[in-house]
Every structure is written in structure tokens, then in C-alpha cells.
């Protein structure tokens, strides 16, 4: 055939004949081009960790955890996502008893984290990870996965399948079509022809694999968290003094966060005692925060609520993961609407409430599309940052369907005495309700256009007063956490006397798909004292009556 010349030199000879046996003095001889082939001691030595597939695909976090642990073996670590870690160990191997010792140490770290992995060592990072992956594929004996002599590298790599290089499947397929299935076969192809057909990127990869080209890796650094401890030489009992002691720590935290342009979402304060376990006090924040004064104020609220079992002998601040700060959070709260200032104060208010009432006591509600009253709503975090509100409104069709006034938050312990000092029950019918709603009875907002503020005032959105009652007039704001069985006489429900049924029934028959099937006829009812209740009768025998909610 035409257009052919003599054979071009292939990549490298698969066997290399060293010109002169290198002595110990050659150790530092750099790898450069073909010279490296005849060098027995490598310039670098890479340990590759290949995490094996587990039920849960290893994520970046797993890699970072492992990377953090591996830092004691060498400072030069690179992540090789999604499932690899690379350690340059030439300098440090002697500290751990040679490469075998290093491998043992690394394997120990993996097993401590319950990660299955295969390990390999080679003079180039690509070669090491190829060996590690191939080792997993072939379940090769460990000794085969250690190549310290660059002269042996190509010979060791040659039989490996191309899949070990993790090239694009398309490239691997196309190489298979010309009969090339191993690394060795690929290395025997003419360079120019290979590059034209399979791309210069792949050629470079082969050169890096064999050390012909250098391979620079990004260095991995462990992400920081803030953790400071302060031992006291005296014992503290007063909350105010405690706060004074914490202040410098908080200042330090502020500087720490400032330097990183970050904030925290959780902050833990541990107070050490002489005999008992430390008291923990955890702040959970709705928005990333970095201002030490704000943090101090919030912490003060929490500490005030704490009962200390013993005097405090030391304290420690621990931050949660650092989060980049959202600089503005405007828009949702109109000035004055929320009993005060501008939008930026909303999160602060929630923090304050949570700090005072407990994190679980303040939550948001969202409507869930379900005809079953008890399944029609769900608790959600009262996250109110500009970005959260925006993305929430964009992504959540249910919430999109709601009017803005329904996107509010409720306090949970909003029973007659549920709110803190200074609030008074404002709803007369609740006062008149003869039963006792425990503080655990939850409010079913059900998306009612009404919300309750911390100041105890009820704000009702404008309600359509048309002929057609809206669904929220048929259903009460308050739902019992579980329907309560009612006595009956002559087939009619009673609760401290007969109940008067007010209107036509609302039939609900649904929910069969998740075991929560119900078939009920709901009615509004009034008891002898005038309290308005929401009751239902089962559609199936024995047709019992239940109380399910209370109208405001």
C-alpha cells in the first residue's frame, strides 16, 4: 500500500537495558525523558488508593476524610475523584518501614473508616492508580502492585487492560477495534499515528503514565473547623461570668470566620465540670452567621435557659462546618410587618425564639398535597434567607401554589400557655375550649391564611367572603395529633353533652396506597358550651365518632 514509510520508533522499548548500574548516589537524579528509563531509583514514588464500590458510592466527603487521615503519612496528597487518593511517599516511606509498611498503614486507615480499597505504589501517579484499579479488577497479589524501579514500570503496566486507565469508553472501544486491549499494546503504537487517531490528551496520558512527561497534582488541604478550649483556674457558677469567659473565644471565632469569608450554621459550647459529663449547648442557626456579638447574644439566651449541674471548670467552642456567607437576605419581610425592623432581622428573631424555646419548638410548616387532614402538612426548618426563600419558591410546586401569606412560620407551643412570658392567649374560643390541649398538640396550619406571631397577636389574611366557603373555613386550624374517640348516643357524638352537627358532611375516602387509608365523613359541630369542634364518623362499621380538631 502507498503512503507508508519505515516504521517509526514506538513509544518505548518494553524492556530497557540500563547502560550502567546506578549507585546509591543516583537517588536524586530527576526523571527527564528517556533518561528516566534507565534510572533505578525514582524521583517520586506514589501510593494510589482506589476505593472499591460499596453500596453507597464513595463521595467526595469520604475522600476528604481519608485524605485528612492520610496526612500523617505524607504532606503531599491529591484527591483523584471519584474514588481515588494519591500520596507522594518517596520522602516518608522510610519513616514507616519502607513501602510495605506504608501500605500497611494506609490499609489500616481505610479499614478504620470501613472503606474497602486496593493500594498500589509506582513512580508515577497515573501508573500507581492504574495498578490499583487493575489490582481490584484482577484481584492481583499485593507484591505485584508495588513498582519502585522505573525500569520495570513499563513491563509491569503492559499486561494491564486499558480499562485501568479510565479513558473515555469511546476511546477504549475504538482501540479495541484495532485489536488493542492492553496498555502494552497501546504503547507499541506509533506516536504520531496514535495522537492523530486518539488525541493528544491520550498521548499525554501515556507519557505521564510512563514518566515521560511530568504530572503535577493539586495538593489537597483539609478543611478547617474552629475548635478552641479554655481551661479555667477557678470554678464558675454565674451565667454572666461564663459569658465573659467565652467572649475571647467568640472573638477568636469571629476573626477565624472573617479570614475565611465564612459563617457557621451550628456552634457547640461545651462546659466542663469536675465530676459529671460536660454540659453541651448547641446553637442551630437558620442562616450562616459570623458576627461574634450576635453569636454571643444568642449563646447568652441559651445559656440563660441552662441549668448547670456543677460549677464550670473549663469551656470549649466547636464550630460546625464552615459555610460561605450569604451577604444579603432582603425582600421577604416588609419593614414593620414582623413586629420590627427590616428583613435582615427575621432570622435573628427566629434564632432568638429558638434560643429561648428550644430549637424544636420553632418550625415552619408547609402544605402537602393530600386530602387526608393529618397528611396535609409537614414540618420544615424555618430557613429564611433570601436564597432559601427564592429557591424554595421556585422549586417547590406546593409552595408555589400558596399565597405569600401562607409562607410563614408558627410556634409550636402555641396553646393557651404555650407562648413565653408576655404573650397572652388572644383567641377567645380557645380560652373557652373546655378540653386541655397539651403543649404537644400541634397546630395544623393546613396552610390557613393566618399566622401567629411571637407577640401573641393573630394576624388573619383577608378571607374571601363569597358564597363559596374556601376549604380553610371547612377545616380547623387546630388538629389533634391523633383523633380522639367520642362517646355516642343514638348514633350521635357526645362530648360533655350532645354535640350539635352544624352542616353537611365532607366525605374523605383516600390514602389507600400507603396503608393510611381512611374513609370518613367530617362534620363541624358545636358542644353545649359553644366550642366549635371538627368531628368525623367512620364510613366503615362500627361507624364510631371521633374528635379531630378545634375551630378557632
Amino acid at each position, binding site marked *: 500500500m502507498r503512503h507508508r514509510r519505515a516504521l517509526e520508533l514506538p513509544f518505548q522499548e518494553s524492556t530497557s537495558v540500563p547502560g550502567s548500574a546506578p549507585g546509591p548516589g543516583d537517588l536524586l537524579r530527576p526523571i527527564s525523558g528517556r533518561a528516566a528509563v534507565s534510572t533505578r531509583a525514582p524521583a517520586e514514588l506514589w501510593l494510589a488508593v482506589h476505593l472499591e464500590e460499596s453500596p453507597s458510592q464513595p463521595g467526595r466527603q469520604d475522600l476528604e476524610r481519608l485524605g485528612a487521615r492520610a496526612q500523617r503519612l505524607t504532606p503531599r496528597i491529591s484527591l483523584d475523584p471519584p474514588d481515588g487518593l494519591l500520596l507522594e511517599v518517596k520522602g516518608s516511606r522510610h519513616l514507616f518501614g519502607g513501602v510495605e509498611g506504608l501500605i500497611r498503614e494506609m490499609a489500616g486507615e481505610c479499614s478504620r473508616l470501613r472503606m474497602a480499597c486496593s493500594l498500589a505504589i509506582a513512580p508515577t501517579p497515573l501508573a500507581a492508580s492504574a495498578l490499583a484499579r487493575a489490582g481490584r479488577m484482577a484481584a492481583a497479589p499485593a507484591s505485584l502492585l508495588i513498582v519502585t524501579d522505573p525500569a520495570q514500570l513499563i513491563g509491569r503496566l503492559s499486561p494491564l487492560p486499558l480499562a485501568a486507565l479510565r479513558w473515555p469508553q469511546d476511546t477504549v472501544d475504538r482501540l479495541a477495534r*484495532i485489536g488493542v486491549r492492553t496498555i502494552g499494546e497501546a504503547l507499541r503504537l506509533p506516536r504520531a499515528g496514535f495522537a492523530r487517531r*486518539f488525541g493528544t490528551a491520550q498521548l499525554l496520558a501515556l507519557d505521564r503514565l510512563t514518566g515521560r512527561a511530568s504530572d503535577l497534582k493539586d495538593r489537597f488541604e483539609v478543611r478547617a473547623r474552629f475548635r478552641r478550649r479554655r481551661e479555667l483556674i477557678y470554678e464558675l457558677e454565674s451565667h454572666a461570668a461564663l459569658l465573659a469567659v467565652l467572649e475571647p473565644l467568640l472573638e477568636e471565632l469571629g476573626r477565624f470566620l472573617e479570614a475565611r469569608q465564612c459563617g457557621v450554621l451550628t456552634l457547640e459550647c461545651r462546659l466542663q465540670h469536675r465530676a459529671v459529663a460536660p454540659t453541651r449547648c448547641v446553637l442551630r442557626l437558620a442562616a450562616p452567621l459570623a458576627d461574634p456579638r450576635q453569636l454571643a447574644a444568642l449563646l447568652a439566651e441559651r445559656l440563660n435557659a441552662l441549668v448547670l449541674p456543677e460549677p464550670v471548670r473549663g469551656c470549649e467552642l466547636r464550630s460546625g462546618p464552615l459555610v460561605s456567607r450569604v451577604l444579603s437576605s432582603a425582600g421577604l419581610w416588609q419593614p414593620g410587618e414582623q413586629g420590627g425592623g427590616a428583613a435582615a432581622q427575621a432570622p435573628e428573631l427566629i434564632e432568638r425564639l429558638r434560643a429561648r424555646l428550644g430549637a424544636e419548638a420553632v418550625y415552619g410548616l408547609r402544605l402537602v*398535597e*393530600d386530602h387526608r387532614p393529618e397528611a396535609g402538612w409537614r414540618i420544615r426548618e424555618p430557613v429564611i434567607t433570601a436564597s432559601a426563600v427564592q429557591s424554595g419558591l421556585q422549586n417547590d410546586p406546593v409552595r408555589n401554589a400558596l399565597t405569600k401569606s401562607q409562607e410563614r412560620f408558627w410556634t409550636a407551643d402555641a396553646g393557651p400557655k404555650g407562648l413565653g412570658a408576655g404573650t397572652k392567649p388572644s383567641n377567645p374560643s380557645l380560652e373557652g375550649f373546655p378540653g386541655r390541649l397539651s403543649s404537644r398538640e400541634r397546630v395544623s396550619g393546613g396552610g390557613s391564611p393566618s399566622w401567629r406571631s411571637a407577640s401573641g397577636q393573630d394576624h388573619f389574611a383577608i378571607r374571601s367572603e363569597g358564597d363559596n366557603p374556601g376549604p380553610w373555613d371547612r377545616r380547623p386550624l387546630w388538629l389533634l395529633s391523633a383523633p380522639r374517640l367520642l362517646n355516642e348516643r343514638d348514633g350521635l357524638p357526645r362530648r360533655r353533652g350532645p354535640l350539635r352537627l352544624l352542616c353537611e358532611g365532607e366525605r374523605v375516602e383516600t390514602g389507600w396506597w400507603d396503608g393510611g387509608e381512611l374513609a370518613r365523613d367530617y362534620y363541624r359541630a358545636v358542644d353545649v358550651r359553644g366550642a366549635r369542634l371538627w368531628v368525623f364518623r367512620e364510613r366503615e362499621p362500627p361507624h364510631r365518632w371521633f374528635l379531630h380538631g378545634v375551630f378557632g
Partner: protein
Amino acid sequence: MTPDAPYAELHCLTNFTFLRGASHPHELVGQAVELGYEALAITDECSVAGVVRAHVAAKGQQLKLIIGSELRLTCGLKLVALATNRRGYGRLCRLITRGRRAAAKGGYSLTRADLEENGLEHCLILWLPGKARGTTLGPQGHEFEPPDPEEARWLEEHFRGRLWIAVELLRDGMDRGHLETLQRIGRDLTLPLVASGDVHMHIRARRRLQDAVTAIRHNVPIAQAGWRLYPNGERYLRERERLAKLYPRELLEETVAVARRCAFSLEELRYEYPHELVPEGETPASHLRKLTEAGAHWRWPQGVPPGERAAIEHELELIADLRYEPYFLTVHDIVAFARSKGILCQGRGSAANSRVCYCLGVTSVDPLRGASLLFERFISRERNEPPDIDVDFEHERREEVIQYVYDKYGRERAAIAATVIMYRPKSALRDLGKIFGLDPTECTRLTKVMQWWDGGDAMRERLREAGFDPDGPMLARLLPLAQELIAFPGFPRHLSQHVGGFVISEGALEELVPIENATMEGRTVVQWDKDDLNDLGLLKVDLLALGMLTALRKSFDLVNDFRGTHHALGSLPAEAAEVYEMISRADTIGVFQIESRAQMAMLPRLQPRCYYDLVIEIAIVRPGPIQGDMVHPYLKRRKSGEPVRYPSREVAGVLQRTLGVPIFQEQVMQLAIAAAGFTPGEADALRRAMGAWKRSGGIEHFREKLIGGMRARGYAEEFAQRLYQQMLGFGEYGFPESHSASFALLAYDSAWLKCHEPAAFAAALLNSQPMGFYAPAQLVRDARAHGVEVRPVDVCVSVWDCTLERRDDEEPVLRLGLRLVKSLTRNGADRLIAARREQAFDSVQDLAARAALDRGDLEALAAAGAFAALSGNRHLAFWEVAGTERPLPLEAALVDAPHEEIHEPTPLLRTPTEGERIVADYASIGLTLGRHPLALLRESLQSNRLLTARDLDGMAHGKPVRTAGIVLMRQRPGTASGVTFLTLEDETGQVNIIVWERIGEEYRRPLVESRLLEVHGELQRQEGVMHVVAHRLIDRSRLLGELITRSRDFH
């Protein structure tokens, strides 16, 4: 207690409002009768697809059926329109057509302007107030949209005097307020109120199914369907007592008043055939006579035989009596068009086997060819249903015929009948799995396990095997719903287009039945299917696609070209003994109709020796005769040759030609006439009842008449009973002689070609793929087994199609064509052939440059090994192809831009192994000219003591054997009571395997999943047919490695 108020339901959806209604039309009708409703309106959403079924169900019942439709305009206005008479029905159909044609398949779009333009004269209108009440949004949705009096005012303006406000009280807790609002609007506008029920199901127990199909429609998991579901199950046909408690009495009485104003019945639809086929100055009768005369002269150039002349007269008279001339003229016109374009076609069906059709060229069943008996029966005077002719065309060219029909009659007058797609086990489980939150892989697993499920309970083990808990809560909820979906007659899912049933009308078709868009661009379908059209006695012509006609035309072309002959359909030498010899050896791969494995098993037993034997052969291997237990008696009598005794001369007349055993569908009808005294019209009613008896029952009252009639005519009770049982078994599965007769002609012609011109026949089959039972690999292997030399695909020689090359000894050689090369584009192949015509290629680079082929086409050719002559083995071909320059845009290439030639060395690439070559052959062209893949594995198979197909040939009946082969086919005929038939292939031949149900259950996974299957079993022989009855199945697919085989699964 006051007597229940009378009631007529005026707003009721069937499951033909797809994935919304949850009950069949006949269920709704039955329940309405049961509840004592005075009338029931079927008002599917912008559709009348379910009305014919309701009409049939309501016939003879004490229930008035009203035809209407629920419509939702784009502005949100919802209404129900009810037809009061034929004109009103026509307007409604026209409006539905408009809405449907304006939207993509399955949807519709109507505006107030459309309504104003149409006017809906002679229709009554019910306003459905509240924008979303009762549609896709849940009730919560509509509560923010209270009844809008503006809508009522607009309607009032346009439909004064025939407008009602529909009051639908569905116990959502707001009924009272709703009623009051509507009463006020009614007072303000002086509009009457009427009760209706927004019915979605016939009984409330369908609520789960209704929820499920709603979730399917919205494509959301049911747990997230939320307000898209109805809050309760009130949308059913409610007892009148309940209604009386809910509604003011006058609203209920008003329903009856409305119903009484509707006087339209589908019975009124009369049908006129197109007129334009009759030239000026002729009547349809005189024109048909002229055409028939001309045809008779063409068919019998020496003069029409006297008997035939009389028969033609008789037929023409009958046609004239029934005024069917336009129908015959329509078919003739279509066939004449096809003929003028050189498209092979052939008619079949009862009317097709008439002398008139023979003369018109619709069929070629020569009455003198031993089948004259057929012509006695085709149209009956009493039946009063249109004649039925199916015309088959070459499958690759049928579209030309269809476009001709559209052009000629216009889309207003011609449309294709619909096919109602019903839920099958697979689709039911897939859709339900999805809404129950199964991920796609679980869904696939479930449908795979259950693909042959018949709705019974026997699947628990299989489910467990596949990792499902049949008693778990999810399946406990899912399976009953699946059962409901697949229960006879099948829950409709959507409308699709019928394979080719055309409706052509004289007037505007859209006033007869709405027309909607089909998936395929430029296609429209009517909303009724074939059965519906039949039930109403409307005319349709089936224009069907038949692959064998394509293959025959291509065979004739190849042979005539190679040998200079003039073969054509029906002109091959008739009744050639060697052809029947070949057929009787079951050497029939590729032969029309008798190539399936069941047919091949029958051929050596039946030993066809003449045309009529083929007619029987084609009809006997069918579920009807097999279930009716007619095969064995027939073979026995045929073999023994002993005379058959008939109970009477009439019965002998019917059964003589099949030795006393009824084999054809028509024979059952004729027996009813001859032995039980049925009129032809009654006999046909019987046939249709049998076709539908599983669906709707109704065969019992024929039983009395049949058995009584036979008794009265002196037949023995036992004979009468047996005949009745045979009829039941036969049911709808009997194959009509009239179709078989036409098919047998094609079977003979294809067998003749296979026998005398195997190379041309194989080439034509390959060029007509996909068609038939066998893949190219088997066709080529069979051709080579018959001595045909086959040459590989070669870029230096091959053209698109497979061709014949002339060998030195003047024999034809089959050259494989580029069409077999997977992923090669037609355009690329055409450019290649054109470039080669200018100058032969001297290298891959030369070819790539001059043919301007892109990388994809080059790689496709390299994968096929088509570059062998230019570059050597596939590895080298791929190296060269990968090195070709990125192709320039086509124009640039044509300007002949000078391209630099690149000089580079050839690497030392490994030669592909034989295994790699075979894998590559299969992957690219689907067959190999090298060794069979199993030849490579034989050593390891032999060490497992597995026998080849040839080994088995020499073994005796009853021997235990082990064999293995590539699974070519899996068949599980619905009627074979759970038996699966497999065909395995190895390098020496094919083996047929029978897997009984119990074994199939036990070895389900290997049975369903294997590509290479090992079978242990017992060898059985019966009248020259050999098969292995399996006892154990083992999946050996792994041995095949990457070998890509394709099995064709039929079930």
C-alpha cells in the same frame, strides 16, 4: 318513604376517556339498568370512542342511551353537549374533530370561537360550573375558582332555550353553598338547574383504580398525586335513594325531562359509498358490469367458460340487490392504482373470493384451480352488513397506496379506523409499578417476571425468585389493580391507528364519527375501531402491508433480470410436484405462512400435495382447530383414507372437502345453516357472537336454536352436542377459508422460488427485511445449505441491496449488500456506489475522500469487514479509518479541494482471532460466513457431553438427551396452555424444544433470559417430526462472551 325519584344520568365518563374513567361502557350500562335509571348519557371527554360499545350493551335493555361529550374549552369553561338527533350528533362530531385536529395526538383544543362557529345545533348544553370542577385539578383547585356567572351569561347568549346548569353534589363539604350559588345564578339568568353526577365509575369499588389511572395520567407516583386525586369515591352511579336525599326533587325530575328531549340513536347512522368512481352517464351497476366483462375477457382470453359466466351473473345480481357496487368499485380503483404503479397486491376475505373480484384483478384465486367451492358463499342477502375485502400490498410501498386514497377522497372523507390499545400484563405492571414508586430497574424486573402473566395467582414463586414479596403491602395493592386492568376485555389505554382499515364516505366523514390525529405525521384516525364500525354496519377497506409481497416482487425482478424470464404473481408453473416434495420435507424457511415452527412440525404429517392441501395446512395450524381438537381426527382420516360417513347430505356438502372435520371458520356457519336450519344472516350473527362470547356472553340463546334445530332435522343428540362444543372451542380463533385460499397462492409462489431459485429468493428476503420469522443469519445459512454460494459485503463490489453475481458456470451467486451493514447510512452508501462507478477505489483514504464518507459510515463499513479488499483485516481497516481526515463539509469535498496525503507507517497490529471475527460479524451484519459460533465452543460443549443437532437426528424416540444451542426463537402461543416452544441452533442445524408449563415455571430465568441454552430432556419423534421435551434448562450464555445473538421472541 316517597318513591325514588326518576333519574337519568347526563354526565358519565367511560374508560374511553382514557386514564380518567374507570369503568367499561358495558359495566356502566349494566349498572344503570340495575339501578333503574331511565336514561344514561355517555359523555366521554371530547370523544365518542366508547359509545358504540355502550350502544351494543344497551340494545334490548330498558335504558335509553344518550350520546354526548364533555368539553373543556381553553378558557376553562366546561360543559356537556348532548345530541338530540342525527343533525345534533353530526354537529357534535364536527366540533370534536375540530378540537382533536387542533392538538397533538391524545389532546384537544377548543375555544369559545369554535363553539360559536359550530353552533352545536340540535344539541342540549349542560354548564358545568366552577372552573376545574371534576377535571384534572383536584377539588381544592377549583375552590379558588367559584362558579363564574359570566360563563353562564355567555352560554345563555348562544344556547338559549337548551341550556341547563348542571348541579353536581359530590359531598366535598361544600355542596350546600354550591347549590345555593347555582340557584341564585339560575334565578338571575332564568336558567333551569338539573342534577348530574360527574360519573367516573359504575360502582364505588372502582375508586382505587380511578386513583391509580389518574396518577398514571399525570405521570406521578400515587403518593405524590395529592389533589390531583378526588377526595372521595362519590363519582359513581349512585342509587336513586341516595340521590333523593342529596338533591331537591325537581332537579332529579329535570334529568328525565332533559333525557326525553334526546332522541338520537346510533342506529340512525346510514352510510353512503363514494360516488365519483362512476363515469358520467353510467350507473354503478352498469359500470361494474363493464369492468367485470373486460376483466373476464382478460382472465379467459379463449372465452369465459359457461359455468363461470352463469356464476358471474349470479354474483352481479346479488351485488346489485344489496347495492354494493360502489364498494367493489372502490376496491377495484385502489387495486388498479397499485397495479399501475407496479405494486404487488392481492385481496382476501369473503367477498374477495368472488368471480367478480377475480375478474377485477383483486385476487388471483383461479376458480378452476380446485377451489371452486369457495365461491358459493360470500355475501348474504340477509346479513345486511358490508362485504369484507382485505387487500395486501408490498409492505415497503403500501404508504403510496394510502396517500393515493387520501388524495383521491380527501381527509374529510377518508380516515383510518382506530385500534383501542388495551392494557397487557406488561404495560399494566409497568405503569402501576411507576406510580407505586418502583425505580425503572425494579419495574423492568417486575414486568420481566410477569410478562406472561394471565392475571391468575400462580406467579408468587416467580415474584419471590425475583426478589419481590408477593404478600408485601406494595404488591398486595398493586396486583389486584393490575388484574383489573388486564381482565377481559382489557382496560383501554389509548387509541392508536389500525394497521390499515380505511373508512371512506360519501359525505363528510366527520359528521359520522370524529376524526383525530394519529402519532404518525399526516395520519388521521376515526374514533371507532374495526369492531365498532362492524357493529354499526359501516364500510371499511383494509389496506394491509405484507412483507412477502415485497419479497416476491423482488424475487421476480431478480430472476427475470438474471434469466430473462417473465415471472409474475400467479404465473409460475402450477402444482409442481418437486415444490410439494420440498414442502412436505418441512424445508420451508422463508416460505410464506408455512415457515413457523408449528407449521414445519405439521408439514411432514399432512404431506401437502396440491393447492387445496396448502389452504388446509395454513388454516389448520391455528388456535381454533387446535383447541377444538380437529387436527388429529383430520390427519387420521387423511392417512387412513377410509371413507367418511356423514349424518346427512347437507352436512356432507359442508364437510366433505375437509374429510368431515370442520377446519375453517366458514364451515361452522355453513353447518348451522345446513344442519340446524339457520338463515345465513342468523349464522353470521352466531359467528359474531362466538367472536365476542367471552366478552359479553350471549351465545346461550343460540345453543337452544342450534341443538333444537338439529334435533328437529333428525340429527342425533350426541352429534348436536359435539358440534356445539366444537363451535365454542373454535370461537373467534377459526381461520377463514377465504383468507387461507389467498395466502396459499403466495405460499405456493414463494415455495416455488425457494425450490428453483434459492439464490434470488434468499436475496429478495434479505432485501425485504424485517419480515417473516427468520433473521438474516438463518436465511443465509439456509441458502448455503441449499448450495447457494454467498459472498461477503465488499466496498469494491456490493451495492445497497443483495444482488446476484454470475459465476463461471452461469449459476447465480448471492452477494451480500451494504444494507446489511449496521449503522451505515443510505446516503453514505449511495455516495460510495456513485464514486466507485467513476473509478475503482485504490485505498481506504481514496474511498473516504471521494465518497465523502463521515467517520460513522467508515467505521460501520470497517466493522462489517467490508474493507477487506482494500486494507486487510478489521484491525487494520479500523486503524486506517481512524486516521482519515475529519470529513469536510459535503460542498467543499465536491469542489475537489486538494487534500494532502498523509504518509505514515502501518503499525504491527494483531490479526483478529476467529472468535473476534465471528463476534464482529454478528455485531455488524447479524450473520457470519465463517464458522458457526458454537463450532468454536464445541470442544467445551463436548466435554460436557452435549450433543449436536446432527447427533440427535440419528437417535431413537424416547432417548434421554442433552444438547445446547443459541436460542433463535421463543414462542408461547396463548392457546397452548402454558407450553413454550424454543428453537435452538448449533453449527449442525436446529433443534426444537418443548417446555411444559411446570418445567417452564421451575427454570423460568434460563428459559426467558438465555442466549445460549443447555437443555436436558427426552427426544421424541412423531411422524417425521423430532423435538426434545425439556426436563432441565441451564443458561450457558456466558460461554458466548461478547457474541451478540438476537433471538426473536413471539408471544
